[in-house]
């Protein structure tokens, strides 16, 4: 049957099957042990990437939500494929049992997590690249979020790697701090000091983000132990893992459990707070600098617009209060002198038994008795607007 789907993945699937068959033959024979360097990095994940690059231009007319959604699907697919490749056949050749393969894979995850924790871009092991995007998710999401309200792109600190993040630790950071703390001199000293302050704030933010990444990498390492425990539980309960998806789901459960425990800790809360606060310092100081620039060009500044918004808001509040007072006075003056109070009790309704619930009757207190208004008004008036 011909596949009429223009996004069909059949051609690369065929290629992957051939690769897989050849690869399986090679590992079975184990005649010549392939080294890590000789092996193709992530053939299925790379294949998926190639397919997506080929077909994604055809989706350019679709809503951003759909494109973003499919990007996420493909991203997760790559991570999944990468994991599957490693678990099903770890490079290294020889007669490996499934347990060996998993152990080997977990070792490499641990290594990648440790490497990731010591730098912000952790791409050292190309075999783990696609899979580690799974562990990168929180930082990646944060960087994209931060870029939406930051003057710098979310991943701007990656440009400093490795001279940036790694070198920041220890003496280098101290020297930079001292350099940036030098007093300004001359006519432009204030401006110089402001930019020095911004640079210090950027460094603080970088450090906070790195601390957060390191903490997450430790969680990653711990997750591998939890995962191993879960696998052992499966073995001891005679319920082996029989599919890649099941394997993946256990991995996600392990990660989520360990992360959930850590995220409830005071340490995480402090680290998270420091990262957000540090970014806000950068953003706030940048806004001040931008405002000064705008002011020098005789243009309205952010500060001025804020002041206008605040004053306008206060005026509107005052206006509303007056309006309500006038309405109240009008109600009182228009009220007939001896108008009988209309009965406003709700019409009886058919009683129904509620679903499962628990009712607590407290002592003496009475429900509040609503105060009756004395003006009679018609029902279901048309839409009203108050600006």
């Amino acid at each position: 049957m011909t596949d009429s789907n223009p996004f069909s993945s059949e051609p690369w699937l065929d290629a992957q099957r051939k690769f897989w068959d050849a690869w399986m033959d090679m590992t079975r024979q184990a005649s010549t042990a392939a080294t890590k360097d000789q092996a193709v990095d992530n053939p299925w994940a790379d294949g998926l990437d190639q397919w997506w690059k080929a077909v994604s231009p055809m989706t350019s007319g679709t809503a951003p939500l759909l494109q973003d959604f499919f990007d996420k699907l493909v991203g997760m697919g790559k991570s999944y494929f990468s994991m599957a490749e490693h678990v099903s056949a770890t490079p290294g050749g020889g007669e490996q049992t499934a347990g060996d393969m998993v152990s080997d894979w977990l070792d490499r995850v641990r290594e990648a997590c440790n490497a990731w924790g010591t730098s912000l871009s952790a791409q050292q092991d190309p075999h783990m690249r696609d899979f580690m995007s799974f562990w990168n998710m929180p930082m990646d999401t944060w960087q994209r979020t931060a870029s939406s309200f930051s003057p710098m792109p979310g991943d701007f600190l990656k440009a400093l790697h490795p001279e940036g993040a790694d070198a920041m630790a220890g003496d280098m950071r101290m020297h930079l701090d001292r350099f940036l703390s030098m007093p300004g001199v001359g006519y432009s000293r204030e401006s110089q000091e402001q930019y020095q302050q911004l640079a210090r704030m950027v460094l603080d933010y970088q450090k906070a983000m790195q601390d957060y990444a390191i903490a997450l990498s430790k969680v990653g390492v711990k997750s591998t132990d939890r995962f191993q425990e879960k696998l052992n539980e499966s073995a001891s309960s005679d319920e082996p893992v029989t599919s890649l998806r099941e394997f993946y789901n256990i991995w996600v459960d392990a990660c989520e459990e360990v992360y959930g425990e850590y995220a409830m800790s005071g340490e995480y809360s402090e680290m998270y707070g420091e990262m957000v606060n540090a970014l806000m310092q950068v953003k706030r100081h940048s806004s001040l600098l931008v405002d000064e620039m705008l002011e020098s060009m005789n243009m309205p500044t952010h500060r001025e617009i804020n002041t206008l918004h605040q004053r306008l808001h206060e005026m509107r509040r005052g206006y509303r209060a007056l309006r309500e007072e006038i309405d109240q006075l009008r109600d009182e003056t228009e009220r007939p002198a001896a108008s009988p109070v209309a009965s406003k009790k709700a019409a009886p309704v058919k009683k129904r038994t509620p679903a499962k619930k628990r009712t607590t009757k407290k002592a003496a207190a009475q429900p509040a008795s609503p105060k009756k208004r004395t003006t009679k008004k018609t029902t279901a008036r048309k839409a009203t607007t108050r600006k």
Partner: protein
Amino acid sequence: MIPIQIRPDQALEELTNFSQKLGHGLQNLMEVGDIPAGVTPKEPVYHEDKMVLYRFQPDTKKVQNRIPLLIVYALVNRPYMTDLQENRSTVRGLLEAGLDVYLIDWGYPDRADRYLDLDDYINGYINRCVNVICRRHDIDAVNILGICQGGTFSLCYTAMHPEKVSNLVTMVTPVDFHTPDNMLSIWARNIDIDLLVDTLGNIPGELLNWTFLMLKPYQLAGQKYMNMVDLLDNPAQLKNFMRMEKWIFDSPDQAGEAYRQFIKDFYQANKLIKGDVQIGDKTVDLGNIKMPVLNVYAMQDHLVPPSASQALKQHVGTDDYTELSFPGGHIGIYVSGKAQKQVPPAIGAWLDERS
């Protein structure tokens, strides 16, 4: 026993199937078209700034409870979650239960709304919406259904204006913000909220999205999409998923001053249960809530833990307090099939008994 027993040919088949679904899914995704949400007919009856008060078309075949129900939704996310699609609509369920349903849509605040605070929202917008409904129906008080943060707002409103509320229903509503299982509260404690609001003005919806995703990052940003691949060949299920996806990421920015007060007073200082919340010139005393209260919460709620909601019982002044627990999550309580069958009819019956 060997814990992993995945045969290579089986693994290959799994990967192949996954890829095929992805390929076919892209085509279905291209054909998914518009993703409408908010399905029940409604009319705007009052609007002010960006806020709109809607009245849903009542189900005239039902015996009507003559006290209308005002739904107060959270500022976070959009209220169409309560009326997501034909077979997942809390609003529809409430109409079928014989209720006359109004809903406040807060809209999307922009920078000009930065100085809106909780006084504006609660003693301002909500109060004026209640006045409009009372005038339309010639009544003195309405029934209120407050959802999530809107539930907290409803508690504050009811405590400050008890004469205007006949019965109060709260749904997945945080009351005690310092229960030990409240992850959001733990995270909020070390954020410098003044710095955040002074810097950003309004709080971007993206920041809230990030926060909610980080509650369960590997499930919500990863596994969910893996599971979705299995549904890609089903256009109806795909559309349902995309509708939910649209809602999840449809996060309005938060008016800065309201956010500042909400996080500082509620999440950080837990003032609601201490009776220390000051809104405008009024103090919020939950003991003033003496009308009947129905407190609905979800047993597996990861955003508002059940314990945070259950605390209400100890702090309200009513002698008619009812709890309704639902076995589901924060979102499932509006959209799951089971919730549709249980929750709106239970609310309708509870209100009927007290009207």
